[in-house]
Every structure is written in structure tokens, then in C-alpha cells.
């Protein structure tokens, strides 16, 4: 017979182990995909900071780029932010004074939502050049709290005919 018949009875053991192996594979793929999505998809905000810090001077003018994103120019004491995904990022600093741009790789921890990257530190090779950045509120102030609309609430009784206790 050309077609191979699927039969559990003929080789139960082999099918059993194959099955188990396949299940392990599925589990591994599920976890692997999850890990990949989490690691590479995690979003971080990098604040690039051109301020004097720990005895290091701020640059007069600096162009900085994270990954392949558009570079931004920062004057002395200025700060900007990059939204990135993943933990490992190349940061390119161009001092705009004819010197070669410096490229460094930084690795952020997974759970750092927002980090403050000091450009003077980075240029001077101080490790680590970033520090976690905590804000009082990590989000825009919430608008008025909205609660769900009722499903068929209006139909049942939108407002009691007479509220309890007058």
C-alpha cells in the first residue's frame, strides 16, 4: 500500500514517544516564541541627556542616534527621548566638530521602563552610562475615569423609579 496508514495499534510505543517529543516541541516553541516576543518586543524609553554630570562637561552641540532612528541634535543641557524595543542598542554620538562619531552599545535591563542616558558619561566610557529614571507618574494624567456602558442596562431600568431612601 502506497499510503502509509496511521495506526495507533501497530506501533504504540513509537507513536507515543513521537507524540511526546512533538508535544515537547510545541511547548518549547510556545515558550520560545513568548520569550522572543517579550525580549525583542519590550519597549523602553531612553532619555538622552546632555548635562554635566559627575565632573564631566556637557557638550556644546551633539548629534545622537539610537539604532536606526533619526538622529537628534542636542545643545548644552538639553534632553530628548527615544522609544525603543529590545534591550541591546547601538548609540551613535557625533560631536559635530570634525571628530569621528563614537558608536557604543548599551544593554538595558528587561524591566527598566525608562532610563536616563548621560551622553558625557557615554562618551567618556563610564560604565554604566545610564541610570533608571523614575518619574512620579509614568503616564499622562488619566482623563475622567470611564466605566463600561451597560449591556442592556437601559432596557432593564436606567434609573430606579424612586431611589431608595428617598
Amino acid at each position: 500500500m502506497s499510503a502509509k496508514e496511521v495506526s495507533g495499534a501497530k506501533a504504540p510505543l513509537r507513536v507515543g514517544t513521537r507524540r511526546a517529543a512533538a508535544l515537547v516541541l510545541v511547548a518549547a516553541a510556545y515558550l520560545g516564541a513568548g520569550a522572543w516576543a517579550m525580549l525583542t518586543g519590550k519597549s523602553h524609553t531612553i532619555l538622552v541627556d546632555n548635562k554635566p554630570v559627575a565632573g564631566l562637561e556637557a557638550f556644546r552641540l551633539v548629534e545622537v542616534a539610537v539604532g536606526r532612528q533619526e538622529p537628534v541634535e542636542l545643545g548644552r543641557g538639553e534632553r530628548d527621548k527615544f522609544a525603543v524595543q529590545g534591550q541591546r542598542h547601538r548609540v551613535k554620538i557625533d560631536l559635530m566638530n570634525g571628530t569621528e562619531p563614537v558608536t557604543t552599545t548599551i544593554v538595558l535591563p528587561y524591566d527598566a521602563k525608562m532610563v536616563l542616558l548621560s551622553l558625557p558619561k557615554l562618551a567618556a566610557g563610564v560604565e554604566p552610562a545610564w541610570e533608571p529614571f523614575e518619574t512620579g507618574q509614568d503616564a499622562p494624567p488619566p482623563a475622567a475615569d470611564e466605566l463600561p456602558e451597560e449591556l442592556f442596562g437601559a432596557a432593564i431600568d436606567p434609573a430606579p423609579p424612586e431611589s431608595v431612601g428617598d
Partner: protein
Amino acid sequence: MNKLKTAVADFGWPRIIIFFFVVALFVAAPFVGVRVDGALSDVLARFGQNGILVLALVPMVQAGAGLNFGLPVGIIAGLLGGTLSMQFGWTGWVGFLGAVGVSLPFAVLFGWAYGLLLNKVKGEEMTIAMYVGFSMVTFFAILWLLLPYSSPNMVWGYSGSGLRTTITLDGYWTKILNDFLAVRLGRFFVFPTGLLAFFGAATGVMWLFLKSKTGTAMTAVGSNPDFARAGGVSSDRMRLVSVVVSTVFGAVGILVYQQSYGFIQLYQAPLYMAFPAVAAILLGGASVNKASMVNVLVGTFLFQAILTMTPNVINSVLQTDMSEVIRIVISNGMIIYALTRKTKVSK
């Protein structure tokens, strides 16, 4: 013991649990600062307000046409009656009774057409009824905008045409039944005599109808269509009658509801109105093919008690408003329970 067991099984655990839930709510109410007399007054008002809509489900269940998810068909007829009566400028009793009178021919007409359709689709009535109701409501939403209503109390002020989404009945027949011979006891308790009397009368009419020759034939059709056929009864005709009666009660029911509520709500409002009524009758012990007046009374009372008490009591206890969730879960859970139960027609 065995008898008790079968009685419990007959009635169904969900109903018993909900029953004790309601009892517990009433018992707990005073401890969390909710006045029982006020709550009871509320429950009674809602009971009368919603009862006729629940009653409207009985004939179709009895005739074996299932739960009338197409109740909005009747509700639309009632809305037509109400708005037309207002347009004619009728107020007070004339207005209310006029609204009922005007809505009846529409209800009979719609019910008849709707019944003809349901007769063609035996076995699938409930899903189709639901969508017939939905399309009727949305179709009439267009008409509310287009029909030449002109009473300034009803149309949008800025454009001068098209009915408002919510029309107040103040000055027309707000609470005309509720306040009729109402008895006030203490500060918090009002007994809505007129409303309950009207509901009682409607229940009586339905009861008499089921006792008539036609009503008997209808019940037999629902109980065993083959038996009825062999007895010379046309099941199509009986089902048609049941749909018409259900639609008429739906029309009257919404008018009673609105006078108690004080507003006419148009457009999308009637879309889901069948669901609470269905939940209530099932809660009262009805099944998909058997329903009685007792089911209506008990079910409406229990259901309205839950709706009134949960926001007050549960919210005081948990410090959060979970009543919406409880209501959704209980009412739909009840419907699912009824739908998944083995139909008890023995064969």
C-alpha cells in the same frame, strides 16, 4: 427525601440559589443601612412596571414557539401608540388609554406578519425572532427620524423634525397608573395600587385566555403538536394566534413600563428589551416550552428584587458597584440554563 430531591431537580439548583440570594439580600439590607421598606416599595413598583412584558412571553412558550426574543416587535407597536397619542395631544387617562388603543391595531398587524414568518421556520424560531426584533428596532429608528411628527415636546428642538431619543411624559401620563389610588405608608413605602391592579387585570385576562377553547388548543399544540393535529387543531393557526397575543401584550407592556418610568425611549433602546423579560420568566420556573402565571409573578418579583437590591446591598458591602456584573451573569446564566436543559416533554 426522594420526593424533595426530585422537587429540587425539577425546580433547578440555579433558581434555588438565586432565591436564597434574594432572601439573603433582604436580610442583609438593614445591616448595611438600606431601608427594607423603601427597597420593597421600589421592588413593587418595578414589579408592576415590568410584569406585563414578562407576561407577553407566556402564549408563545405555551404554543411551543419558544421564548419570544422578538418582543421588540410588540414594543415598537407600543411606541407607535404612545408617540401618536402624544402627537394628538391626548393627556392623562385619555392619553394613556388612547395610546393603548392606537397601538393595538399595529400590534395585531405586526404580530400577524411576524407570526407568519415564524411558522415558516419551525425549530429555528428563537434565533430568527431575535434578529427580526433587532431589524424591526433599527428600521423604526429610521422612521422615528422621518415620520412627520410635529409636537414640540417630542421633536428635536433645533431641527424641528425627527423624534428625540428620550421623550418625557410629564404633562401627559407620567405615573398615571402608579399614582392611581396609591397608598403611602410612612416616609418610604408607597403601594402602587393602580399599577398592580392593572398588572393583575392583565394577568387575569391572560389566564382566562389560556382557559378558553383557543387557549386550550394552543397549550396542546405546545405540549404535543401531533396530538393537537390529530385532534383537528391547526398548529400553524394556534402559533399565529399566540404570536399575535404575545405582540399585543408586548405593546401594552411597554406603555405600562413607560408611564411608570416617565419617559418614552426610542431608537436603539428597545433592542435588548426582550432579554430581561426572558430571564425573569425563566427565573420564575418556566421552561422553553411551559410557562404559567405563577412563573411570571414569581420570576418578575425575584428578578426585580435582584435588580433593586444588588446595587444597594452588594455595593455597600463590597464598596464597589458590581451589580451590573451580577445582573448580566444571573440573567444570561438563567437563559443558558433553560436552553441547555433537556426539554422535559416525555416521549
